[in-house]
Protein backbone atom coordinates (compact mmCIF):
# COMPACT_ATOMS: atom_id res chain seq x y z
CA UNK A 1 0.00 0.00 0.00
CA UNK A 2 1.14 3.52 -0.57
CA UNK A 3 2.53 5.71 2.11
CA UNK A 4 0.85 8.99 2.95
CA UNK A 5 3.52 11.66 3.13
CA UNK A 6 2.83 14.75 5.24
CA UNK A 7 4.76 17.44 7.04
CA UNK A 8 2.90 17.00 10.31
CA UNK A 9 0.88 14.07 11.64
CA UNK A 10 -1.34 14.95 14.58
CA UNK A 11 -2.52 12.03 16.66
CA UNK A 12 -5.83 12.78 18.30
CA UNK A 13 -8.51 15.07 16.89
CA UNK A 14 -9.64 16.20 20.33
CA UNK A 15 -9.77 19.82 21.38
CA UNK A 16 -5.97 20.06 21.56
CA UNK A 17 -5.22 18.44 18.21
CA UNK A 18 -7.98 20.33 16.40
CA UNK A 19 -6.86 23.64 17.91
CA UNK A 20 -3.32 23.06 16.68
CA UNK A 21 -4.57 22.62 13.11
CA UNK A 22 -6.34 25.99 13.34
CA UNK A 23 -3.23 27.64 14.71
CA UNK A 24 -1.21 26.28 11.78
CA UNK A 25 -3.55 27.64 9.09
CA UNK A 26 -1.06 30.34 7.99
CA UNK A 27 1.43 27.56 7.19
CA UNK A 28 -1.23 25.45 5.44
CA UNK A 29 -1.78 28.43 3.16
CA UNK A 30 1.90 28.20 2.28
CA UNK A 31 1.66 24.52 1.38
CA UNK A 32 2.22 22.75 4.69
CA UNK A 33 0.44 19.38 4.86
CA UNK A 34 -1.19 17.81 7.91
CA UNK A 35 -2.70 14.41 8.63
CA UNK A 36 -5.17 14.41 11.51
CA UNK A 37 -5.65 10.94 12.97
CA UNK A 38 -8.19 9.74 15.50
CA UNK A 39 -9.37 6.39 16.77
CA UNK A 40 -12.97 7.55 16.42
CA UNK A 41 -14.86 8.73 13.38
CA UNK A 42 -14.96 12.53 13.51
CA UNK A 43 -18.27 13.95 14.65
CA UNK A 44 -18.39 17.10 12.61
CA UNK A 45 -21.65 18.27 14.08
CA UNK A 46 -20.72 17.49 17.67
CA UNK A 47 -23.41 14.80 17.71
CA UNK A 48 -24.53 14.52 21.30
CA UNK A 49 -25.62 10.88 20.91
CA UNK A 50 -22.28 9.38 19.93
CA UNK A 51 -19.55 11.69 21.04
CA UNK A 52 -15.96 10.58 20.90
CA UNK A 53 -14.55 10.33 24.43
CA UNK A 54 -12.74 13.64 24.35
CA UNK A 55 -15.95 15.45 23.43
CA UNK A 56 -18.14 13.86 26.06
CA UNK A 57 -20.86 15.42 28.18
CA UNK A 58 -18.34 17.42 30.14
CA UNK A 59 -17.98 21.13 29.98
CA UNK A 60 -14.77 23.13 29.87
CA UNK A 61 -14.05 26.46 31.49
CA UNK A 62 -12.25 28.60 28.96
CA UNK A 63 -10.05 31.33 30.34
CA UNK A 64 -10.44 34.81 28.90
CA UNK A 65 -7.08 34.25 27.18
CA UNK A 66 -8.30 31.05 25.50
CA UNK A 67 -11.48 32.76 24.35
CA UNK A 68 -9.45 35.60 22.85
CA UNK A 69 -7.34 33.06 20.97
CA UNK A 70 -10.42 31.21 19.65
CA UNK A 71 -11.80 34.55 18.56
CA UNK A 72 -8.69 35.38 16.56
CA UNK A 73 -8.94 31.95 14.93
CA UNK A 74 -12.52 32.68 13.83
CA UNK A 75 -13.83 29.74 15.87
CA UNK A 76 -15.40 31.77 18.63
CA UNK A 77 -18.12 33.35 16.51
CA UNK A 78 -19.46 29.89 15.64
CA UNK A 79 -19.67 28.68 19.24
CA UNK A 80 -20.32 31.90 21.16
CA UNK A 81 -24.08 31.31 21.26
CA UNK A 82 -23.61 28.06 23.14
CA UNK A 83 -21.04 29.43 25.59
CA UNK A 84 -21.86 31.12 28.86
CA UNK A 85 -19.90 34.11 30.11
CA UNK A 86 -18.68 34.01 33.70
CA UNK A 87 -19.22 37.53 34.99
CA UNK A 88 -18.70 36.87 38.68
CA UNK A 89 -16.84 34.24 40.67
CA UNK A 90 -17.42 33.55 44.32
CA UNK A 91 -14.74 31.57 46.12
CA UNK A 92 -15.82 30.37 49.56
CA UNK A 93 -15.06 27.89 52.28
CA UNK A 94 -17.88 25.98 53.95
CA UNK A 95 -18.40 27.02 57.59
CA UNK A 96 -15.56 29.48 57.56
CA UNK A 97 -15.43 33.21 57.23
CA UNK A 98 -13.25 33.53 54.19
CA UNK A 99 -14.98 34.44 50.98
CA UNK A 100 -13.97 36.44 47.98
CA UNK A 101 -15.71 37.78 44.91
CA UNK A 102 -14.27 38.51 41.52
CA UNK A 103 -16.12 40.64 39.00
CA UNK A 104 -15.50 41.01 35.29
CA UNK A 105 -16.43 44.69 35.48
CA UNK A 106 -13.76 45.23 38.11
CA UNK A 107 -11.19 43.62 35.80
CA UNK A 108 -12.29 45.76 32.88
CA UNK A 109 -13.26 42.75 30.75
CA UNK A 110 -16.59 41.47 29.53
CA UNK A 111 -16.12 38.06 31.15
CA UNK A 112 -13.77 36.36 33.58
CA UNK A 113 -14.03 33.25 31.46
CA UNK A 114 -16.52 31.15 29.52
CA UNK A 115 -18.11 27.77 30.04
CA UNK A 116 -18.91 25.58 27.09
CA UNK A 117 -19.88 21.95 26.61
CA UNK A 118 -17.02 19.99 25.11
CA UNK A 119 -19.25 18.64 22.34
CA UNK A 120 -20.12 22.17 21.21
CA UNK A 121 -16.56 23.41 21.27
CA UNK A 122 -15.44 20.21 19.54
CA UNK A 123 -17.88 20.74 16.68
CA UNK A 124 -16.83 24.38 16.39
CA UNK A 125 -13.21 23.35 16.11
CA UNK A 126 -13.67 20.37 13.78
CA UNK A 127 -16.22 21.69 11.30
CA UNK A 128 -14.01 24.30 9.63
CA UNK A 129 -11.24 21.68 9.17
CA UNK A 130 -13.45 19.56 7.00
CA UNK A 131 -12.58 21.19 3.74
CA UNK A 132 -9.35 22.87 4.68
CA UNK A 133 -6.82 22.36 1.95
CA UNK A 134 -3.69 20.57 3.08
CA UNK A 135 -5.47 18.68 5.85
CA UNK A 136 -6.19 14.98 5.54
CA UNK A 137 -8.41 13.39 8.14
CA UNK A 138 -7.60 9.76 8.80
CA UNK A 139 -10.38 8.69 11.13
CA UNK A 140 -11.29 6.27 12.37
CA UNK A 141 -7.81 4.81 12.37
CA UNK A 142 -5.50 3.42 15.00
CA UNK A 143 -1.73 3.60 14.90
CA UNK A 144 -0.28 0.17 15.63
CA UNK A 145 3.34 1.07 15.48
CA UNK A 146 5.58 4.09 15.33
CA UNK A 147 9.19 4.12 14.21
CA UNK A 148 11.44 7.16 14.14
CA UNK A 149 13.58 7.38 11.00
CA UNK A 150 15.75 9.84 9.06
CA UNK A 151 12.69 11.55 7.60
CA UNK A 152 10.90 11.83 10.92
CA UNK A 153 8.22 9.44 12.12
CA UNK A 154 6.82 6.45 10.28
CA UNK A 155 3.39 5.26 11.39
CA UNK A 156 1.75 1.94 10.62
CA UNK A 157 -2.04 2.06 10.87
CA UNK A 158 -4.23 -0.93 11.70
CA UNK A 159 -5.89 -0.78 8.28
CA UNK A 160 -2.55 -1.35 6.54
CA UNK A 161 -1.94 2.24 5.54
CA UNK A 162 1.31 3.95 6.50
CA UNK A 163 2.09 7.58 7.17
CA UNK A 164 5.49 9.25 6.92
CA UNK A 165 5.60 12.59 8.75
CA UNK A 166 8.40 15.04 9.37
CA UNK A 167 6.87 15.92 12.73
CA UNK A 168 4.65 13.73 14.86
CA UNK A 169 2.41 15.51 17.38
CA UNK A 170 0.96 13.24 20.03
CA UNK A 171 -2.26 14.77 21.33
CA UNK A 172 -3.92 11.45 22.00
CA UNK A 173 -4.73 11.93 25.66
CA UNK A 174 -3.35 10.84 29.01
CA UNK A 175 -0.72 8.12 29.07
CA UNK A 176 -0.43 7.90 25.32
CA UNK A 177 0.30 4.23 24.54
CA UNK A 178 2.26 5.27 21.47
CA UNK A 179 4.52 7.54 23.50
CA UNK A 180 5.21 4.56 25.73
CA UNK A 181 6.20 2.58 22.66
CA UNK A 182 8.98 5.14 22.26
CA UNK A 183 10.10 4.69 25.86
CA UNK A 184 8.44 7.86 27.13
CA UNK A 185 7.08 7.18 30.59
CA UNK A 186 4.62 8.95 32.86
CA UNK A 187 4.79 10.12 36.43
CA UNK A 188 1.49 9.74 38.20
CA UNK A 189 0.64 11.32 41.50
CA UNK A 190 -2.80 10.34 42.69
CA UNK A 191 -4.89 12.72 44.81
CA UNK A 192 -6.92 9.91 46.34
CA UNK A 193 -10.05 11.57 45.01
CA UNK A 194 -12.43 11.35 42.07
CA UNK A 195 -14.09 14.12 40.11
CA UNK A 196 -17.81 13.64 39.79
CA UNK A 197 -19.03 15.63 36.79
CA UNK A 198 -22.64 16.35 35.96
CA UNK A 199 -25.07 19.12 35.10
CA UNK A 200 -27.78 20.47 37.39
CA UNK A 201 -30.69 22.82 36.98
CA UNK A 202 -31.66 25.38 39.59
CA UNK A 203 -34.92 27.23 40.12
CA UNK A 204 -32.96 30.44 40.11
CA UNK A 205 -31.13 31.93 37.12
CA UNK A 206 -27.35 31.98 37.55
CA UNK A 207 -26.89 35.51 36.18
CA UNK A 208 -23.34 34.72 35.14
CA UNK A 209 -22.13 33.62 38.57
CA UNK A 210 -19.65 30.77 39.03
CA UNK A 211 -18.98 29.25 42.43
CA UNK A 212 -15.87 27.60 43.72
CA UNK A 213 -16.62 26.16 47.13
CA UNK A 214 -14.27 24.30 49.39
CA UNK A 215 -16.72 22.09 51.21
CA UNK A 216 -15.97 19.44 53.82
CA UNK A 217 -16.51 16.72 51.24
CA UNK A 218 -14.03 18.36 48.84
CA UNK A 219 -13.94 21.31 46.42
CA UNK A 220 -16.99 21.89 44.23
CA UNK A 221 -17.17 24.07 41.17
CA UNK A 222 -20.50 25.31 39.79
CA UNK A 223 -20.00 26.74 36.32
CA UNK A 224 -22.90 28.57 34.65
CA UNK A 225 -24.24 27.03 31.43
CA UNK A 226 -27.63 27.94 29.94
CA UNK A 227 -29.74 30.30 32.05
CA UNK A 228 -30.68 27.99 34.95
CA UNK A 229 -28.09 25.25 34.43
CA UNK A 230 -24.69 24.65 35.90
CA UNK A 231 -21.89 22.27 34.99
CA UNK A 232 -20.75 20.73 38.26
CA UNK A 233 -17.32 19.36 39.13
CA UNK A 234 -17.37 17.78 42.57
CA UNK A 235 -14.22 16.36 44.08
CA UNK A 236 -14.93 13.38 46.32
CA UNK A 237 -12.76 10.98 48.23
CA UNK A 238 -12.26 7.62 46.53
CA UNK A 239 -14.17 5.78 49.25
CA UNK A 240 -17.38 7.78 48.89
CA UNK A 241 -17.60 8.48 45.18
CA UNK A 242 -19.41 5.24 44.29
CA UNK A 243 -22.01 5.85 46.97
CA UNK A 244 -22.66 9.37 45.75
CA UNK A 245 -22.89 8.18 42.14
CA UNK A 246 -25.45 5.57 43.15
CA UNK A 247 -27.76 7.96 45.04
CA UNK A 248 -31.19 8.54 43.55
CA UNK A 249 -31.58 11.98 42.01
CA UNK A 250 -33.47 13.57 44.91
CA UNK A 251 -30.99 12.38 47.54
CA UNK A 252 -28.06 13.36 45.34
CA UNK A 253 -29.42 16.88 44.86
CA UNK A 254 -30.08 17.25 48.58
CA UNK A 255 -26.52 16.23 49.39
CA UNK A 256 -25.06 18.54 46.77
CA UNK A 257 -27.26 21.42 47.94
CA UNK A 258 -26.03 20.89 51.48
CA UNK A 259 -22.42 21.19 50.32
CA UNK A 260 -22.78 24.14 47.94
CA UNK A 261 -25.26 26.12 50.07
CA UNK A 262 -28.32 28.03 48.94
CA UNK A 263 -26.84 30.92 47.00
CA UNK A 264 -27.14 28.87 43.78
CA UNK A 265 -30.89 28.61 44.31
CA UNK A 266 -32.88 25.44 44.83
CA UNK A 267 -31.48 22.56 42.77
CA UNK A 268 -34.26 20.66 41.06
CA UNK A 269 -32.83 18.25 38.50
CA UNK A 270 -29.60 16.53 37.63
CA UNK A 271 -28.20 15.02 34.41
CA UNK A 272 -26.01 11.98 33.84
CA UNK A 273 -23.28 11.56 36.45
CA UNK A 274 -19.77 10.53 35.43
CA UNK A 275 -16.65 10.17 37.51
CA UNK A 276 -12.95 9.77 36.93
CA UNK A 277 -9.95 9.41 39.29
CA UNK A 278 -7.93 12.56 39.89
CA UNK A 279 -4.19 12.53 39.45
CA UNK A 280 -1.43 14.75 38.25
CA UNK A 281 0.08 12.88 35.32
CA UNK A 282 3.09 14.24 33.49
CA UNK A 283 5.22 12.70 30.78
CA UNK A 284 8.93 12.41 31.51
CA UNK A 285 9.75 14.12 28.22
CA UNK A 286 7.86 16.31 25.77
CA UNK A 287 10.09 16.82 22.75
CA UNK A 288 12.48 14.78 20.68
CA UNK A 289 13.58 15.24 17.10
CA UNK A 290 10.40 15.05 15.00
CA UNK A 291 8.24 14.44 18.06
CA UNK A 292 6.22 16.55 20.47
CA UNK A 293 3.65 15.62 23.13
CA UNK A 294 0.75 18.03 23.64
CA UNK A 295 -2.26 18.40 25.92
CA UNK A 296 -3.05 15.51 28.26
CA UNK A 297 -0.39 13.40 26.53
CA UNK A 298 2.13 15.80 28.10
CA UNK A 299 0.37 16.78 31.33
CA UNK A 300 -3.05 16.19 32.80
CA UNK A 301 -3.99 18.31 35.80
CA UNK A 302 -6.40 18.41 38.70
CA UNK A 303 -9.50 20.22 37.42
CA UNK A 304 -9.83 22.45 40.48
CA UNK A 305 -8.73 25.64 38.76
CA UNK A 306 -9.97 24.53 35.35
CA UNK A 307 -6.55 25.16 33.82
CA UNK A 308 -5.79 21.91 31.97
CA UNK A 309 -7.25 22.83 28.60
CA UNK A 310 -6.22 26.46 28.88
CA UNK A 311 -2.62 25.39 29.44
CA UNK A 312 -2.87 22.98 26.50
CA UNK A 313 -4.09 25.89 24.34
CA UNK A 314 -1.15 28.06 25.38
CA UNK A 315 1.19 25.14 24.61
CA UNK A 316 -0.46 24.77 21.19
CA UNK A 317 -0.20 28.48 20.45
CA UNK A 318 3.45 28.57 21.45
CA UNK A 319 4.27 25.47 19.40
CA UNK A 320 2.43 26.86 16.38
CA UNK A 321 4.35 30.11 16.73
CA UNK A 322 7.63 28.18 16.56
CA UNK A 323 6.50 26.00 13.65
CA UNK A 324 5.24 28.98 11.64
CA UNK A 325 8.50 30.79 12.20
CA UNK A 326 10.41 27.69 11.12
CA UNK A 327 8.31 27.34 7.95
CA UNK A 328 8.78 31.04 7.10
CA UNK A 329 12.52 30.60 7.35
CA UNK A 330 12.40 27.51 5.18
CA UNK A 331 13.46 25.24 8.06
CA UNK A 332 12.37 21.72 8.92
CA UNK A 333 9.30 21.29 11.11
CA UNK A 334 10.90 18.34 12.93
CA UNK A 335 14.00 20.30 13.87
CA UNK A 336 15.08 19.36 17.38
CA UNK A 337 16.59 22.74 18.24
CA UNK A 338 13.30 24.45 17.33
CA UNK A 339 11.26 21.97 19.38
CA UNK A 340 13.59 22.45 22.34
CA UNK A 341 13.16 26.22 22.03
CA UNK A 342 9.40 25.71 22.14
CA UNK A 343 9.68 23.61 25.28
CA UNK A 344 12.00 26.15 26.86
CA UNK A 345 9.57 28.96 26.06
CA UNK A 346 6.63 27.11 27.66
CA UNK A 347 8.53 25.68 30.62
CA UNK A 348 7.75 28.34 33.21
CA UNK A 349 4.07 28.58 32.19
CA UNK A 350 3.75 24.79 32.51
CA UNK A 351 5.63 24.72 35.79
CA UNK A 352 3.56 27.52 37.36
CA UNK A 353 0.22 26.24 36.13
CA UNK A 354 0.95 22.69 37.23
CA UNK A 355 2.19 23.88 40.63
CA UNK A 356 -0.95 25.98 41.17
CA UNK A 357 -3.27 23.15 40.14
CA UNK A 358 -1.36 20.81 42.43
CA UNK A 359 -1.19 22.97 45.53
CA UNK A 360 -4.80 24.23 45.65
CA UNK A 361 -6.55 20.88 46.16
CA UNK A 362 -3.95 19.87 48.76
CA UNK A 363 -4.37 23.12 50.64
CA UNK A 364 -8.12 22.82 50.73
CA UNK A 365 -8.29 19.08 51.24
CA UNK A 366 -6.56 19.34 54.58
CA UNK A 367 -8.46 20.17 57.72
CA UNK A 368 -5.40 20.83 59.81
CA UNK A 369 -5.63 24.05 61.78
CA UNK A 370 -2.76 25.97 60.29
CA UNK A 371 -3.73 25.31 56.72
CA UNK A 372 -7.33 26.14 57.44
CA UNK A 373 -6.21 29.35 59.06
CA UNK A 374 -3.97 30.16 56.14
CA UNK A 375 -6.74 29.66 53.62
CA UNK A 376 -9.20 31.69 55.72
CA UNK A 377 -6.59 34.36 55.99
CA UNK A 378 -5.90 34.03 52.29
CA UNK A 379 -9.50 34.41 51.25
CA UNK A 380 -10.10 37.32 53.64
CA UNK A 381 -6.95 39.07 52.52
CA UNK A 382 -7.93 38.51 48.92
CA UNK A 383 -11.34 40.06 49.36
CA UNK A 384 -9.75 43.02 51.12
CA UNK A 385 -6.93 43.66 48.73
CA UNK A 386 -7.83 44.76 45.24
CA UNK A 387 -4.32 43.99 43.98
CA UNK A 388 -4.31 40.40 45.24
CA UNK A 389 -7.75 39.93 43.77
CA UNK A 390 -6.67 41.30 40.44
CA UNK A 391 -3.67 38.98 40.41
CA UNK A 392 -5.83 35.97 41.25
CA UNK A 393 -8.27 36.97 38.55
CA UNK A 394 -5.52 37.40 36.01
CA UNK A 395 -4.34 33.89 36.80
CA UNK A 396 -7.85 32.45 36.59
CA UNK A 397 -8.39 34.30 33.34
CA UNK A 398 -5.20 32.89 31.89
CA UNK A 399 -3.76 36.33 31.33
CA UNK A 400 -0.85 35.85 33.68
CA UNK A 401 1.25 34.49 30.86
CA UNK A 402 2.68 36.44 28.00
CA UNK A 403 0.25 36.41 25.11
CA UNK A 404 1.48 34.62 22.02
CA UNK A 405 1.65 36.32 18.67
CA UNK A 406 -0.59 34.10 16.63
CA UNK A 407 -2.96 36.15 14.60
Amino acid at each position, binding site marked *: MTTINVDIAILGAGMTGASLVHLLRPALAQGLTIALLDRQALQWQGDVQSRPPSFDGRATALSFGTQQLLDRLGVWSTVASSACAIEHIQVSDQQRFGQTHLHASEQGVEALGYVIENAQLGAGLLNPLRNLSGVQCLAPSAVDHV*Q*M*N*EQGAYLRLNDGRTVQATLLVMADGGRSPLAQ*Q*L*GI*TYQRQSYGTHALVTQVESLQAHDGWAYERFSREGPIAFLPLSSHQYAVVWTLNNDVVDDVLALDDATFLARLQQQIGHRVGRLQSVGERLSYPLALVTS*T*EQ*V*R*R*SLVLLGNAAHSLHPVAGQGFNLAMRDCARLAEHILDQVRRGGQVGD*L*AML*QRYQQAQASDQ*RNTIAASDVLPKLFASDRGLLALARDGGLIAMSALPTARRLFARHAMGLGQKATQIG
Partner: protein
Amino acid sequence: MNNTESLNVDNAEIAKFEALASRWWDRESEFKPLHDINPLRCNYIDERAFLAGKKVLDVGCGGGILSESMAQRGADVTGIDMGEAPLNVAKLHALESGVDIDYRRITVEQLAEEMPEQFDVVTCLEMLEHVPDPAAIIAACQRLVKPGGYVFFSTLNRNPKSYLFAIIGAEYILRLLPAGTHDYHKFIKPSELTRWARTAQLDVVDMTGMTYNPIRKTYALNAKDVSVNYMVTTRKAGSTSQ
Protein backbone atom coordinates in the same frame (compact mmCIF):
# COMPACT_ATOMS: atom_id res chain seq x y z
CA MET B 1 36.18 -14.51 28.67
CA ASN B 2 37.26 -15.41 32.19
CA ASN B 3 40.40 -13.40 32.66
CA THR B 4 39.98 -9.67 32.48
CA GLU B 5 42.95 -8.77 34.61
CA SER B 6 45.20 -7.71 31.79
CA LEU B 7 42.39 -5.68 30.22
CA ASN B 8 41.56 -2.04 30.84
CA VAL B 9 38.88 -3.04 33.33
CA ASP B 10 38.52 -2.60 37.07
CA ASN B 11 36.98 -5.81 38.37
CA ALA B 12 35.92 -4.22 41.65
CA GLU B 13 34.00 -1.58 39.71
CA ILE B 14 32.33 -4.24 37.58
CA ALA B 15 31.32 -6.12 40.73
CA LYS B 16 29.58 -3.04 42.15
CA PHE B 17 27.33 -2.83 39.12
CA GLU B 18 26.70 -6.58 39.05
CA ALA B 19 25.16 -6.26 42.49
CA LEU B 20 22.89 -3.40 41.43
CA ALA B 21 21.81 -4.76 38.05
CA SER B 22 18.29 -5.81 38.97
CA ARG B 23 17.33 -2.25 39.88
CA TRP B 24 18.70 -0.68 36.71
CA TRP B 25 15.29 0.05 35.18
CA ASP B 26 13.57 0.92 38.44
CA ARG B 27 13.02 4.65 38.17
CA GLU B 28 12.60 5.00 41.90
CA SER B 29 15.88 3.24 42.67
CA GLU B 30 19.40 4.64 42.96
CA PHE B 31 19.35 4.82 39.15
CA LYS B 32 16.64 7.51 39.21
CA PRO B 33 18.99 10.41 38.36
CA LEU B 34 20.32 8.49 35.40
CA HIS B 35 16.78 8.01 34.09
CA ASP B 36 15.82 11.59 34.82
CA ILE B 37 18.68 13.16 32.91
CA ASN B 38 18.75 10.69 30.03
CA PRO B 39 16.22 12.52 27.80
CA LEU B 40 18.29 15.70 28.05
CA ARG B 41 21.53 13.94 27.25
CA CYS B 42 20.04 11.91 24.44
CA ASN B 43 18.56 15.05 22.87
CA TYR B 44 21.95 16.76 23.28
CA ILE B 45 23.57 13.91 21.34
CA ASP B 46 20.78 13.77 18.75
CA GLU B 47 20.91 17.51 18.16
CA ARG B 48 24.60 17.27 17.20
CA ALA B 49 24.92 13.83 15.63
CA PHE B 50 21.41 13.26 14.15
CA LEU B 51 20.90 9.72 15.40
CA ALA B 52 18.13 8.44 13.10
CA GLY B 53 19.53 6.00 10.56
CA LYS B 54 23.03 6.09 12.08
CA LYS B 55 25.17 3.21 13.27
CA VAL B 56 25.88 3.98 16.92
CA LEU B 57 28.12 2.35 19.52
CA ASP B 58 27.34 2.82 23.24
CA VAL B 59 30.47 2.07 25.25
CA GLY B 60 29.82 1.07 28.87
CA CYS B 61 26.12 0.68 28.14
CA GLY B 62 25.26 -0.90 31.51
CA GLY B 63 21.56 -1.76 31.68
CA GLY B 64 20.95 0.03 28.39
CA ILE B 65 19.19 3.26 29.37
CA LEU B 66 21.00 5.39 26.79
CA SER B 67 21.20 2.57 24.20
CA GLU B 68 17.42 2.13 24.18
CA SER B 69 16.64 5.81 23.97
CA MET B 70 18.99 6.15 20.97
CA ALA B 71 17.38 3.13 19.29
CA GLN B 72 13.97 4.70 19.93
CA ARG B 73 15.22 7.77 18.08
CA GLY B 74 15.88 5.61 15.05
CA ALA B 75 19.54 4.67 15.53
CA ASP B 76 21.03 1.23 14.86
CA VAL B 77 22.68 0.66 18.25
CA THR B 78 25.40 -1.68 19.50
CA GLY B 79 25.92 -1.63 23.28
CA ILE B 80 29.04 -3.02 24.95
CA ASP B 81 29.89 -3.54 28.62
CA MET B 82 32.07 -5.85 30.68
CA GLY B 83 29.42 -6.47 33.35
CA GLU B 84 27.56 -9.72 32.76
CA ALA B 85 24.54 -8.93 34.92
CA PRO B 86 23.86 -5.41 33.57
CA LEU B 87 24.13 -6.76 30.02
CA ASN B 88 21.59 -9.47 30.76
CA VAL B 89 19.28 -6.82 32.20
CA ALA B 90 19.81 -4.73 29.07
CA LYS B 91 19.00 -7.65 26.76
CA LEU B 92 15.86 -8.57 28.68
CA HIS B 93 14.64 -5.01 28.82
CA ALA B 94 15.20 -4.52 25.09
CA LEU B 95 12.87 -7.46 24.45
CA GLU B 96 10.29 -5.87 26.71
CA SER B 97 10.62 -2.49 24.95
CA GLY B 98 10.57 -4.04 21.50
CA VAL B 99 13.82 -2.40 20.39
CA ASP B 100 16.51 -4.15 18.42
CA ILE B 101 19.94 -3.59 19.98
CA ASP B 102 23.09 -5.64 19.60
CA TYR B 103 24.50 -6.09 23.13
CA ARG B 104 27.98 -7.58 23.49
CA ARG B 105 30.38 -8.32 26.34
CA ILE B 106 33.66 -7.07 24.95
CA THR B 107 36.16 -4.35 25.80
CA VAL B 108 36.23 -1.24 23.68
CA GLU B 109 39.89 -1.93 22.77
CA GLN B 110 39.03 -5.40 21.49
CA LEU B 111 36.08 -4.11 19.51
CA ALA B 112 38.34 -1.44 17.98
CA GLU B 113 40.50 -4.26 16.58
CA GLU B 114 37.45 -6.04 15.23
CA MET B 115 35.41 -3.14 13.83
CA PRO B 116 37.62 -0.13 13.12
CA GLU B 117 35.81 2.91 11.67
CA GLN B 118 32.49 1.08 11.56
CA PHE B 119 30.37 3.53 13.59
CA ASP B 120 28.91 6.93 12.74
CA VAL B 121 28.58 7.85 16.40
CA VAL B 122 30.23 6.57 19.60
CA THR B 123 28.92 7.42 23.08
CA CYS B 124 30.84 6.79 26.29
CA LEU B 125 28.92 8.22 29.25
CA GLU B 126 29.73 7.74 32.95
CA MET B 127 32.39 5.22 32.11
CA LEU B 128 35.83 6.89 32.02
CA GLU B 129 35.90 7.40 35.79
CA HIS B 130 35.54 3.65 36.32
CA VAL B 131 38.55 2.39 34.35
CA PRO B 132 42.31 2.28 35.11
CA ASP B 133 43.36 3.94 31.85
CA PRO B 134 40.77 6.40 30.49
CA ALA B 135 43.10 7.72 27.78
CA ALA B 136 43.23 4.25 26.20
CA ILE B 137 39.41 4.12 26.11
CA ILE B 138 39.29 7.49 24.38
CA ALA B 139 41.85 6.33 21.81
CA ALA B 140 39.84 3.15 21.14
CA CYS B 141 36.64 5.20 20.65
CA GLN B 142 38.51 7.28 18.10
CA ARG B 143 39.50 4.12 16.19
CA LEU B 144 35.89 2.86 16.16
CA VAL B 145 34.28 5.99 14.74
CA LYS B 146 34.25 6.77 11.03
CA PRO B 147 36.11 9.83 9.74
CA GLY B 148 33.95 12.88 10.44
CA GLY B 149 31.95 10.96 13.07
CA TYR B 150 31.11 12.14 16.59
CA VAL B 151 32.31 10.73 19.91
CA PHE B 152 30.55 11.85 23.12
CA PHE B 153 31.97 11.54 26.61
CA SER B 154 30.58 12.40 30.01
CA THR B 155 32.21 12.11 33.38
CA LEU B 156 32.72 13.75 36.77
CA ASN B 157 35.01 16.70 37.32
CA ARG B 158 37.77 16.54 39.94
CA ASN B 159 37.82 19.74 42.03
CA PRO B 160 36.94 20.80 45.59
CA LYS B 161 33.26 21.19 44.71
CA SER B 162 32.75 17.77 43.18
CA TYR B 163 34.87 16.30 45.99
CA LEU B 164 32.61 17.90 48.55
CA PHE B 165 29.51 16.70 46.74
CA ALA B 166 30.82 13.19 46.44
CA ILE B 167 31.86 12.99 50.07
CA ILE B 168 28.84 14.64 51.65
CA GLY B 169 26.39 13.01 49.31
CA ALA B 170 23.88 15.79 49.76
CA GLU B 171 20.61 15.63 47.92
CA TYR B 172 21.51 18.27 45.36
CA ILE B 173 24.44 16.39 43.95
CA LEU B 174 23.88 15.29 40.45
CA ARG B 175 24.84 11.77 41.39
CA LEU B 176 24.32 9.93 38.20
CA LEU B 177 25.34 6.66 39.73
CA PRO B 178 24.62 5.07 43.08
CA ALA B 179 26.65 5.97 46.14
CA GLY B 180 29.80 3.91 46.52
CA THR B 181 30.26 3.48 42.80
CA HIS B 182 32.56 6.47 42.51
CA ASP B 183 36.14 6.94 43.56
CA TYR B 184 36.99 10.61 43.75
CA HIS B 185 40.60 10.08 42.68
CA LYS B 186 39.41 8.73 39.35
CA PHE B 187 37.37 11.85 38.57
CA ILE B 188 38.63 13.64 35.50
CA LYS B 189 39.24 17.34 34.95
CA PRO B 190 37.94 18.79 31.67
CA SER B 191 41.51 19.82 30.86
CA GLU B 192 42.65 16.19 31.17
CA LEU B 193 39.81 14.87 29.08
CA THR B 194 40.35 17.40 26.31
CA ARG B 195 44.11 16.68 26.33
CA TRP B 196 43.48 12.93 25.98
CA ALA B 197 40.96 13.61 23.22
CA ARG B 198 43.41 15.76 21.28
CA THR B 199 46.17 13.20 21.74
CA ALA B 200 43.78 10.63 20.28
CA GLN B 201 43.12 13.01 17.36
CA LEU B 202 39.60 13.93 18.31
CA ASP B 203 38.62 17.60 18.03
CA VAL B 204 36.71 18.92 21.04
CA VAL B 205 33.76 20.81 19.57
CA ASP B 206 31.54 21.41 22.58
CA MET B 207 31.40 21.02 26.33
CA THR B 208 28.42 21.38 28.65
CA GLY B 209 27.76 20.87 32.34
CA MET B 210 24.87 19.00 33.90
CA THR B 211 23.23 20.63 36.88
CA TYR B 212 20.47 19.81 39.31
CA ASN B 213 18.00 22.30 40.73
CA PRO B 214 17.11 20.98 44.20
CA ILE B 215 14.02 23.18 44.55
CA ARG B 216 12.41 22.40 41.23
CA LYS B 217 13.89 18.90 41.28
CA THR B 218 14.85 19.27 37.66
CA TYR B 219 18.00 18.65 35.69
CA ALA B 220 19.47 20.91 33.08
CA LEU B 221 22.38 21.15 30.70
CA ASN B 222 24.35 24.27 31.44
CA ALA B 223 27.36 25.20 29.32
CA LYS B 224 28.53 27.61 32.02
CA ASP B 225 28.82 25.10 34.83
CA VAL B 226 31.06 22.09 34.25
CA SER B 227 32.09 21.96 37.91
CA VAL B 228 30.54 18.57 38.70
CA ASN B 229 29.17 16.48 35.84
CA TYR B 230 30.00 17.43 32.31
CA MET B 231 29.65 16.20 28.78
CA VAL B 232 32.03 16.66 25.85
CA THR B 233 31.39 16.45 22.11
CA THR B 234 34.37 15.44 20.00
CA ARG B 235 34.74 14.77 16.32
CA LYS B 236 37.17 12.75 14.27
CA ALA B 237 38.79 14.58 11.40
CA GLY B 238 37.72 13.74 7.87
CA SER B 239 34.54 13.89 5.90
CA THR B 240 31.56 11.64 6.50
CA SER B 241 31.15 9.31 3.57
CA GLN B 242 27.72 7.79 3.29
